[in-house]
């Protein structure tokens, strides 16, 4: 089926422009914080950002920046620079790209603003510890480390006490860094807004339950930026509310994300930022819509633990039980739930050499999905930012064969 220009136009999402505006405004605020007297904190993507928002500190995410570097295809160059500084090519490419861009004070948007403090939560990986230590030394800024014990199966009482105590230390750290008292009422409000934002984000993702789906995971990768960076702010809530309305309208109007949705797929792991377009066109050419992914879902997965009437306690639990901080058996449960919820025909796993905690266990998950649901899967080996490790013809053969396999099965 060939697509007319009008078809393409109607498929285009209106909210994209608004998102770009918000993100531009956000980065301008962050980059001019020095002049406006606001403080900037660098924080890991899975870190509890809400206390920062409550203290009016601007959160900045080197990982979001890493995604920007990847999408603007600057990853290979920056990674190579980091390697020349002595960092191993096995190190996460977000870390390599971020460290190199600090050194040259360059990259997209001319580099990130200097941090006044850094907040590192190891609920996503151990890499961030060393990465943030390096940056804290480089910028000579204080670093707070929130240590979240790994939850193989449960969040024990000991873990609960341990993390909860650190949340109080985190608050004390922020008071010290800003020389301001922490406002618990404000915190409550920010917590409420954060939960609302996450609920809306989940609702947006859930519109993909519809057949045909109004969005793909490639859209989700784009629209994710706000729930990562500005969780807990009203602008996020407004944005996702209007995005949700747009998605619901598309469903009502029968506008699908891809021209001819025949197969529905689930994506696992981070995006391959520099190949988003190629991948989305490749799958669309096979009439396959990647309707959901484990990655963008991670920013609303903790909703089940969140309680706005007891935000700080529930936040401690929610952040500790993040997707990358639980055992593989728990991950399998989540993946199977998603397979059922979005009713997918296949499972696409990005085996990401950058992100070990995400990629470890994928074969077990794959086996479980195959055993429990009998759907085919495929592995794509790559790096999320470092395009030197992407092989187009290898990836193409895998995807083509995978789609042929699904075609043989489903007809």
């Amino acid at each position, binding site marked *: 089926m060939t697509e007319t220009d009008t078809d393409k136009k109607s498929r285009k999402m209106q909210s994209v422009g608004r998102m770009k505006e918000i993100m531009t405004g956000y980065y301008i605020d962050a980059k001019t914080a020095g002049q406006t007297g606001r403080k900037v904190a660098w924080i890991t993507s899975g870190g509890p950002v809400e206390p920062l928002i409550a203290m009016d500190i601007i959160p900045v995410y080197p990982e979001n920046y890493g995604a920007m570097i990847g999408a603007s295809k600057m990853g290979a160059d920056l990674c190579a620079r980091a390697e020349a500084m002595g960092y191993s090519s096995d190190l996460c490419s977000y870390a390599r790209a971020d460290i190199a861009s600090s050194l040259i004070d360059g990259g997209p948007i001319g580099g990130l603003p200097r941090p006044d403090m850094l907040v590192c939560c190891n609920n996503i990986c151990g890499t961030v510890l060393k990465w943030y230590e390096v940056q804290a030394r480089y910028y000579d800024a204080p670093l707070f480390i929130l240590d979240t014990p790994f939850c193989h199966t449960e969040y024990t009482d000991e873990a609960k006490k341990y993390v909860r105590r650190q949340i109080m230390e985190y608050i004390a750290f922020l008071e010290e860094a800003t020389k301001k008292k922490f406002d618990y009422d404000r915190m409550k409000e920010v917590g409420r807004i954060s939960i609302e934002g996450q609920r809306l984000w989940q609702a947006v993702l859930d519109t993909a339950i519809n057949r045909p789906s109004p969005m793909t995971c490639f859209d989700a990768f784009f629209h994710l930026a706000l729930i990562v960076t500005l969780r807990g702010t009203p602008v996020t809530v407004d944005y996702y509310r209007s995005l949700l309305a747009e998605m619901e309208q598309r469903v009502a109007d029968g506008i699908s994300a891809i021209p001819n949705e025949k197969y529905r797929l689930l994506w696992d792991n981070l995006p391959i930022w520099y190949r988003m377009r190629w991948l989305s066109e490749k799958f669309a050419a096979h009439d396959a819509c990647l309707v959901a992914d484990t990655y963008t879902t991670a920013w609303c997965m903790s909703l089940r633990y969140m309680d706005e009437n007891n935000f700080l306690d529930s936040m401690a639990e929610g952040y500790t039980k993040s997707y990358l901080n639980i055992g593989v058996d728990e991950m399998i449960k989540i993946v199977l739930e998603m397979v059922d919820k979005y009713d997918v025909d296949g499972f696409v796993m990005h*085996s990401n050499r950058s992100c070990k905690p995400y990629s470890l266990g994928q*074969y077990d998950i794959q086996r479980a999905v*195959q055993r429990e649901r009998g759907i*085919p*899967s495929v*592995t794509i*080996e790559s790096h999320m930012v470092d395009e030197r*490790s992407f*092989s187009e*013809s*290898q990836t193409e*053969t*895998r995807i*083509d*064969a995978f789609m*042929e*396999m699904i075609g*043989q*099965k489903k007809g």
Partner: protein
Amino acid sequence: MITAGIDIGSITAKAAILSDGRILGSKVAFTGYNAREAGRSVYEALLRELEMDAPTIERIVSTGYGRNSVVFADKAVTEIICHGAGAYYLNPHVRTVIDVGGQDSKVLAVNPDGTVKDFAMNDKCAAGTGRFLEVMARAMESDLDDFGPLSLKSHNPSKISSICTVFAESEVISLIAKGENREDIIAGIHESVASRISSMARRVGVQEPVMMTGGVARNIGVVRALERALGVSIEVSRFAQVNGAIGAAVIAAKI
């Protein structure tokens, strides 16, 4: 119905022609620099050999890494599906296919109806492929065709631990320098290939009967090493190298 399959691999291009499920002929040639040209020339050479004209061929399917460069094919299908179809054609009971070609190796689990249930491929690395063996043959200053029979004479295969082709090559060179027995080194090379492929095969799950296809299947040393590593017997058809092209021709009859 008369159909053709053309398989453009990284090292060789293969063509096969089938008539109502009977193999009329097949041919192998080097791919060389120009994949597009290779497809046409191996196909035309086969037609000449069979004294057939192009118009008698009703349908053509191309496969292999150069599948999209065969512009005169009716359809391009990946080598994974074609190897499944080819192996099923040669033996309808087959459940596992191990295909080792020039630049990649793959293991397929085949459904009882010949469709592919699951597959695994080597990651972007030459370990466990024909290219790996070529590099080793160069290091050993041997002809690759002698590798199989020579390795069968070994009683004590050398240990080659590196997966990386470049490192493994220097390991081999140092084994030569140490004066290790030639047969043992070659047997060690085969074991290294077999161990790489067998872990991939286990991931997919090995069910008998197992068939090996692709150019490397002609190397009896690799086949025996794989049999030992997996604890199964492996059948190799005389059409192993052209199995992908045969599968493509089989599929061509169905589209």
